[in-house]
Every structure is written in C-alpha cells, then in structure tokens.
C-alpha cells in the first residue's frame, strides 16, 4: 500500500487508483509470465491441514509450505535460494492445486506433477527420492527409509531430510514414522500428520 501522503491540492487524482493498480498488476503478471520473467510463481490454497503455499518454477513444483512455516519467510527464502523474481501467478500452479484437492478428497493416491528438487541437495535429495516408494496408506520407519539409501545407518539424517522436505504432501514424508510405531514430528505439525495418515487409512 502506498504510504505517500499526497498534498490536499493533488489529493483528487489518487481516487480509485488502488483498483487501477490491481488491474495493472493482473495484466503485468500475465505478461511477465508469458515472457518467461517469473522465475517463481506461487499461489495459496485452502486445505484440511490449513492454508498451503504452492510455489513453482519453470521446471516444476518447487515448494509446498504449511502456514505454520510462515508464508512470508518461505517467500523470502525462495528469493534467496531461487530468485527474487517472484509473483503470485496462480495459473502455473493449477495442476498442483487440482491434484492436492483430489488427494484431500480421497480421490488421488499419487501425484503426477513435474517436481523441481533444487531446494534439496545431496543426501536429503536422495531420501526424498525414496519416499514415494512408501505407498499410499502405508508407513515406514526412519530406519527403514535409511535402509533404502546409500547410507543405511543414517537414520537421523533421514529425519532431517523429512523435516526439511520442501515438497511435503506431494513427496510423502508424512508416511515416515518412528520405529516404535508412534507418529513422530512433522513440519506441518503433529495434528496435520495424524490427519493425513487417517485420511489415507480411511480412503483405502
């Protein structure tokens, strides 16, 4: 919002400019996207686990963030890690929004979306690559996931990889639980994790 205090003499000309700017911003987003200038597009969606931020690059979905992560700080992190050319441009995320919606309705068991894993490097990336092997409605322990990787004893590192998963829900870190069968932590909160596991158990 513009904070410039306009002198009384000139005040009449700022009437209605908020609507004009909103209109211009919408056209701008479309033009910038068409010219390939939007490095990161994002949108918000509502879900049973709260509002989600979806962000995508030209390569694919790059970030799914829960509200508890703080969407403003998520966007700032994307600025630093990917590019500051960030716009709220929902069209690029239409497919992701639709598939997540289907998932929450119990009508989708796996995602068919191009994914951009640039926010997870090295071993974290390797761990994320194995998570889809845990099927819908199934769970696996951190130790079991570690056993799938090139470092079968790196149980703690598996926990870190899950906790910092840039693509939760789509890459199912919520299916990784403790060896004793308890659910363990989740970056979207423990409640969200139990909701997801119950959803998948019920819709089977």
């Amino acid at each position: 919002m513009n904070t410039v205090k306009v002198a009384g003499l000139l005040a009449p000309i700022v009437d209605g400019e908020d609507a004009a700017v909103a209109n211009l911003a919408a056209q701008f987003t479309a033009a910038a996207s068409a010219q390939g200038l939007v490095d990161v597009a994002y949108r918000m969606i509502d879900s049973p686990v709260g509002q989600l931020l979806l962000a995508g690059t030209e390569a694919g979905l790059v970030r799914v963030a829960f509200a508890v992560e703080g969407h403003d700080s998520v966007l700032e992190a994307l600025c630093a890690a990917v590019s500051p050319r960030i716009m709220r441009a929902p069209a690029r995320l239409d497919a992701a929004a639709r598939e997540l919606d289907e998932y929450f309705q119990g009508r989708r068991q796996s995602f068919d979306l191009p994914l951009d894993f640039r926010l997870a490097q090295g071993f974290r990336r390797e761990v994320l690559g194995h998570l889809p092997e845990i099927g819908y409605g199934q769970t696996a322990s951190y130790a079991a996931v570690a056993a799938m990787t090139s470092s079968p004893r790196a149980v703690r590192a598996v926990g870190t990889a899950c906790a910092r998963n840039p693509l939760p829900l789509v890459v199912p870190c919520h299916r990784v639980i403790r060896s004793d069968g308890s659910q363990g932590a989740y970056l979207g909160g423990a409640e969200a994790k139990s909701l997801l596991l119950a959803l998948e158990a019920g819709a089977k």
Partner: protein
Amino acid sequence: MPAPSDAAAVIPEQISTALPPFEVLITHHGAAVLRVCRALVGPTDADDVWQETFLAALRVYPSTGSVRNREAWLVTIARNKAMDHHRKAARLPLPDGGPGSGEQGLGALTVGEHGVDEHGAGETGHGGGDVVVRSVEAGETAAAVWAALATLTPMQREAVVYHHLAGLRYAEVAGILGNSEAAARRAAADGMRALRALLDHERTQKQ
C-alpha cells in the same frame, strides 16, 4: 557497487543481497509509479508505460541488490519509458486535455487544500453527502488537477510529481532531474504555487 573483498569472491551474489519478492515492489510502489506515468504521458497511455516500467524492472531485478531506494529506481525507469514513449509517438509531453479542458470539472472542486491534508485519498465525505455525486465530482476534480499539471513547465511538473505524488526526497528528485537539491525544491514550490493559483482561479470563476 559493493567494494571488492575476499568474501565477495566466495559468496554467491544472491546471498549478498536481500531483495524482497518482486511482487512487493508492485504492492508498495505501483500507485506512485502510476501517478508518475499519468503525469508524464497522460492517463490514456499511462497504463502501457506502467507495464513497460515494471517489465523492465523485473528483467534486471536479480542484479539490483545495490539499489538503495527502489522507488527512486522505479521512477527513473518510468521516466525513461515515458521519454521513449514520447519519442516513439513524437508527441508533446503533455497529459490529455490542455488548460482549457478542466472547465467542466472545476466547479466540482469541493475538495480544497484544507479539507484533506491529512487524509489524502482516504477522504470520505465530511458532510456524509451523496456518495455517487461525490465520486463523479471526484473524477471531474481529478481531471482538473491533471489538466492543471499539464500546464506547468516540464521541470516544475516533474519536481511536483516526484516529490509530492511519488514521495521522493528532493535529493532524489534532483538526482533524477540532474539539477541541485535547491533547484528541485524551488521547481516543486513554483509548480505547486502555479497549480494552486490555477485551481483556485478556476474554482472561483465557476462559482
């Protein structure tokens, strides 16, 4: 430009700068840039120049970490785009409507300088009068102000617009106009005096 140092060689450039998402620039400065565009090319072509301004800014945005005042930067781009526009159109740098076209609106100039100093655009009918009439009057009044702005010399108009409408400090205005801070301040003051005289004159004429 940051001074060269050992650290600069190691740290990737994107980490050394903390740029906000580009979208924030539109939220914070979109209105000010629109005022500048309207003042420099007129309301009809302002939208195109606004788009060109922000597209140009977006293109180079990742490498602008050293820009200190983003609004002054955007206003400078807008000014360049406005000049390009005039060159292309080979038109006089005047907004639509000359000095004479304000007649229909000036009678409705009920929003005097004293009424809204602290409220700006948020002025919401002191008398609680007819909202529709007020909004029509506001549109006519705005047209009158644009027309009055168009009668100023280019230097005065730009100084008024950059300082009073875009909120830049005189030092920044001077940087854009290529003159001194004192000259920028004088041009804005002269411009505001001329505007006041013109708008007061036409208002009393109409009454």
